């Protein structure tokens, strides 16, 4: 955070602490080298932690990382920790307390603190992006003992992602929905799904009113066809325009993404989206530990918290690495086509130029980058 002309405000408390503990003469950067003077040193830091706990208190334990990372930390443990650190702060307990656990707690709290007051991802330098990603990975490790890989890969030049959907091919299997939920760590409790498959009657045109997007019978059903919708990654996205804090924006490769840590949860974007592209975490999202996809991207499928908006990102963690989004890969019929719109030789370009393509609600001027076509 050496950058002076930052566009947001940050408290540098965490940094200072780090510098202070780094200056400890014994060389261990993570505190606790055992001497009397050092136990005093820990005292200061622990006191800070306690102060933080006290000042943000309940709110932090609820909206912070405990709940993001699905670690049960009830109020009693939180309270215990608080009192423990207060005790240390008062100097009542100095050497008797386990150094390792206090170290970890300290680090956790420091990460929480820095994360609570970090800036908007969109405005971060690459260095800061790496910083926050490292913190999140470390935090996850501290809390669950497991490692994840989280990327902060930026948009590549000369890439603009586009998507095409073949209505005559889709058979309504919903394999894409399954793959999406698993890939993107969506809340299992509320059964959040980005993709909807609408079962439409032949001969009625694209009549969404009479379509069923929650069918459960053998498919394809006689006399019906299927049409999938999700976020269309509009090139002129109304959802981005309305966000009061720029927590959602259009990346240079055309992906419309959300910074889950910056979103204040006003749901204005949801009201502004004409395509039902956004999903809100009404309660704390939960994914069983065994089902968590550990290959994550900061803007993509990392764990969310309650009260924030999320949406399809064309699987940014996959697409920026050159893979197809999970839905494209899962579709057994080849109804879904994904690619780089700027590459004249790409398959998506061939589809746009040679098939009769159309988009939904084109009259709204949102310029979705999601085209439909038929054989």
């Amino acid at each position, binding site marked *: 955070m050496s950058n002076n002309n930052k*566009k*947001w*405000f940050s408290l540098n408390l965490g940094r200072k602490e780090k510098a202070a503990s780094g200056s400890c003469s014994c060389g261990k950067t993570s505190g606790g080298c055992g001497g009397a003077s050092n136990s005093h040193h820990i005292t200061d830091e622990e006191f800070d932690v306690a102060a933080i706990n006290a000042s*943000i208190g*309940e*709110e*932090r334990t*609820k*909206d912070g990382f405990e709940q993001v990372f699905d670690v049960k930390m009830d109020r009693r443990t939180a309270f215990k920790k608080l009192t423990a650190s207060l005790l240390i702060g008062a100097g009542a307990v100095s050497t008797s307390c386990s150094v390792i656990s206090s170290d970890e707690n300290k680090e956790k709290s420091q990460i929480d603190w820095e994360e*609570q007051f970090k*800036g*908007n991802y969109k*405005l971060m330098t690459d260095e800061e992006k790496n910083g926050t990603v490292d913190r999140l990975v470390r935090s996850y490790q501290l809390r669950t003992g497991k490692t994840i890989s989280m990327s902060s890969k930026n948009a590549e030049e000369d890439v603009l992602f586009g998507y095409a959907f073949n209505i005559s091919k889709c058979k309504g299997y919903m394999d894409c929905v399954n793959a999406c939920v698993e890939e993107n760590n969506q809340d299992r409790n*509320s059964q959040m799904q980005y993709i*909807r498959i*609408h079962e439409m009657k032949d001969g009625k045109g694209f009549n*969404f*009113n*009479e*379509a069923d*997007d929650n069918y459960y019978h053998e498919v394809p059903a006689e006399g019906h066809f299927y049409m999938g*919708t999700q976020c269309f990654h509009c090139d002129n996205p*109304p959802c981005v*325009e*309305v*966000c*009061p*804090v*720029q*927590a959602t924006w259009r990346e240079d490769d055309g992906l419309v993404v959300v910074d889950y*840590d*910056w*979103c*204040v*949860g*006003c*749901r*204005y974007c*949801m*009201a*502004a*989206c*004409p*395509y*039902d592209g*956004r*999903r*809100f*975490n*009404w*309660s*704390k999202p939960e994914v069983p530990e065994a089902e968590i996809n550990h290959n994550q991207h900061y803007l993509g499928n990392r764990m969310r*918290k*309650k*009260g*924030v*908006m999320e949406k399809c990102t064309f699987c940014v963690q996959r697409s920026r690495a050159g893979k197809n989004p999970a839905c494209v890969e899962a579709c057994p019929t080849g109804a879904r086509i994904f690619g780089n719109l700027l590459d004249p030789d790409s398959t998506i370009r061939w589809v746009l130029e040679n098939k009769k393509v159309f988009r939904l609600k084109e009259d*709204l*001027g*949102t310029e979705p980058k999601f085209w439909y076509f038929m054989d």
Partner: protein
Amino acid sequence: MRRLRVFGSLVKDSLDTITHGSKRYHLWMALLTFVMLFGMYCYSIQLEHGLSVTGMTDRVSWGLYISNFTFLVGVAAAAVMLVMPTYVLKDIDFKQAVLIGEGLAVAALIMCLAFVVADMGGPSVLWHMIPGIGVFNFPNSMLTWDVLVLNGYLFLNITIPLYILFRHYQGKEANPKVYIPGAILSVFWAVGIHLVTAFLYQGLQARPFWNNALLGPRFLASAFAAGPALIILVLAIIRNFTEFKIQDKTIKKIAMVVTVAAQINLIMLISELFKEFYAPTHHSESAYYLFFGLDGKDALLPWIWTAIPLNVLATVLLTFHKLRNNFKVLFFCCFILFIAIWIEKGFGLIVPGFIPGPYGKIAEYTPTGIEIGVTLGIWALGAFVFTILAKTAIGIELGTLKYKKNEGI
């Protein structure tokens, strides 16, 4: 230094007044406190479990909170109907009423902000919205405009009365050169806050029910009916329970404002209904849902069919001078008009905007108990704030609250 001392004494004196009063007053404040505490308890549950404890879903993502917010912006804006004639046109009639009106505006604005905060998914990161500290998406997002104008309006409505009261407190006349520019500004501002709030919805091409050019003007008309109606009711109460003199003439003038606004509002309603139902398009479905129900889903019918007759009845009654000048009828009309517009511009505006959803799916919305609890709590907060403000203002205006020069602090 002297000013500071006077101000300190003002604060002390007003604290004194608001803690002393009749038994009824204490009972009233205790009731409000109780409801507020109840609301806070409900809000703590919402904080704990997230917004899933409300009736809102991905389909209907704004509900009771935003409905009340929208309505209250209108109430706040209506204070201007009293400010303009008094300060600018020097119409002496409104002089007493105006302080009450501005107090009402302040209370309404505080409620607005409370509703917005209650509606947020992440209140702990609300600092992201503070210009300078966070990132403020100005001028693109209408919500940032709204934050600006609401807070600006709150500032204006606090400073102007404060200045006047401050002077009166010391037994001096307020200098019109100081407060008139502010008053004129607040006139424009009041129109601004309501237009901007209308634009919040009007600018969404995704929601055809809102995306119509009449929304802004209709907001204004209904605000200038509902707001002064509330002021009349409040003045009536104050007249009854305190010695504060409010002349019949004043109330009659405000009643005139209410009447004209209600008439205009009705005309716009007719125009809107004509557009939706004469040549119904795909975009009229929300209106169909609101007035007749869609696919057997009709949760809003009882509400809207209460609101429309009340609205029409009140407007018709108010239109006749004889009836309007009868205070019993007037108060009744104001009351039903207030209720009608609360329904029409709260529930009746916000919820059908989301129904049917972008792909024609209908999920109905019913507020939960917790949501209602928080809402009641915020209304109690508003009433509480207003009572405090009004009590102090009345005290000063009546001269019972006066700066004593020799009082040492």
